[in-house]
């Protein structure tokens, strides 16, 4: 009896980790959802059973039903991120390179960043029509702000002494740019692109839910209007998983290119 009590106490202690609590929470949510879904005791239309949602998700993964929509959304998000990077990084470098430019432009960019980007969508529809390009534009403008702001932050964090030392040893402007500035701001730019990707996904897909002919956002609204709630949930799950995977992949990819932080290293290692 004493041994069993000891084992239970030991298991209890082992369960007291954040991971166990997270797993337990997930299990409880799934169990309660399934119970509600199967018994129809609460909002029967709103809580389809987990098995119905997973069946629908399986259909997306094993049939080509989603492919044209996925292609449209990927094109929009990819194009948006590329455009935002091409526009945001150089602008961030320019604004961050001089104190006076930074002081004038940074508050303007910050104020513009607060405006919800989706409200600019009607303007893009006027200029670009209702096909993929207007959504690409919304995604690009949404991704632009984190990229430009983090590039500016990166530029402002470059210590003046590094540039002075490089000049003292006769480094050219090109060498200062590639050996001092680029490694110093790379981390911030990568973070900006990663955050920008999330913004681009939200911007482009939200625009798709408004007016579109294809795309994952378009599918969500289609399912909503047809009241196919299980399909809508599974599609949302699919989008969340895809966004999380893309985020993790980007984090890993950028960690390969990011310069190693030397702030905690002893100076002795260089001698």
């Amino acid at each position, binding site marked *: 009896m004493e041994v069993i009590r000891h084992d239970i106490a030991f298991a209890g202690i082992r369960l007291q980790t954040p991971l166990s609590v997270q797993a337990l929470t997930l299990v409880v949510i799934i169990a309660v959802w399934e119970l509600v879904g199967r018994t129809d005791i609460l909002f029967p239309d709103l809580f389809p059973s987990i098995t119905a949602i997973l069946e629908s998700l399986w259909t997306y993964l094993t049939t080509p039903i989603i492919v044209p929509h996925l292609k449209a959304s990927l094109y929009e998000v990819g194009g948006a991120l590329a455009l935002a990077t091409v526009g945001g990084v150089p602008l961030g470098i320019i604004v961050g390179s001089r104190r006076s430019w930074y002081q004038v432009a940074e508050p303007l960019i910050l104020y513009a960043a607060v405006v919800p980007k989706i409200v600019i969508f009607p303007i893009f529809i*006027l200029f670009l029509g209702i096909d993929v390009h207007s959504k690409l534009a919304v995604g690009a403008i949404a991704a632009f702000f984190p990229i430009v702001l983090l590039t500016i932050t990166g530029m402002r964090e470059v210590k003046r002494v590094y540039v002075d030392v490089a000049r003292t040893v006769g480094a050219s402007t090109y060498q200062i740019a590639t050996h001092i500035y680029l490694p110093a701001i790379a981390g911030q730019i990568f973070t900006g692109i990663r955050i920008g990707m999330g913004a681009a996904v*939200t911007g482009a897909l939200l625009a798709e839910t408004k007016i579109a002919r294809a795309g994952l956002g378009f599918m969500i609204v289609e399912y909503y209007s047809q009241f196919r709630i299980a399909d809508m949930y599974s599609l949302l799950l699919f989008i969340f998983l895809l966004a999380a995977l893309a985020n993790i992949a980007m984090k890993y990819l950028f960690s390969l290119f990011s310069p190693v932080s030397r702030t905690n290293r002893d100076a002795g290692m260089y001698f």
Partner: protein
Amino acid sequence: MSESTRLTAWRLGLIFGALVIVESAVRLGWISSFFLAAPTRAAIVLWTELLHGNALWLTGITLFEIAACLIISTVFGVLAGFLLWRYQLIGTSYETLLAALFSSPVILAYPIFLVTFGRTSAAVIALSSIFGLIPIIINTKGAFQNVNPILLQVGASMNLTRKQMFRHILIPAVAPAIFSGFRLALTYILKSVLGLEYVAQVGGVGMWLSDAAFKFEVEEVYAGLFGTIMLSVLFLYLINRAESRVRK
């Protein structure tokens, strides 16, 4: 001329210059007025709508939604943040989950809220409150966690009761950090409310913009956009002012 006046003059000059370029481009016919409204025309439409139309009423609805979200987020957010700090294991576990939820495109789930609450302001308030709730929870938890232990030791050495310690030490120590969360929450709520109003075509200013776009009323679209931008900028300005006062 002081440094800040000079900077403000430069900023206003940049904005004014951009508006002059757009105005000239439309008036000289470089860009068709079908695509782009002259800023003066948009401003006149906005002014007329404010005086004689229902723009003020719609702004009131949007402000009501923002205020409701803020109250819900603050009450539940501060309470949840405090509890997550008090119960460390739960706090550590759920902080990661909340951060993950916050970085996922939750706003795309708005049809679920439309199904639940109908096409009403309640749907906008319910979903937008989530965007306000998470930063307040995380900041409140962080604020309590980072209270300088010396302050607590001083309180203990003065034989303060638990209530006095909470009232005179903890609350003043955590207020600035909680306010940062509040500021972040307000920014996200503002974006979410206006965005959802536009996408779901419910509520106030966002719905006006959506209606105008639907009718291809170009000047009204730009007027609505101008109004939305002004509202966002005004909010951010007021939050910044309030935050600097709290930090003092």
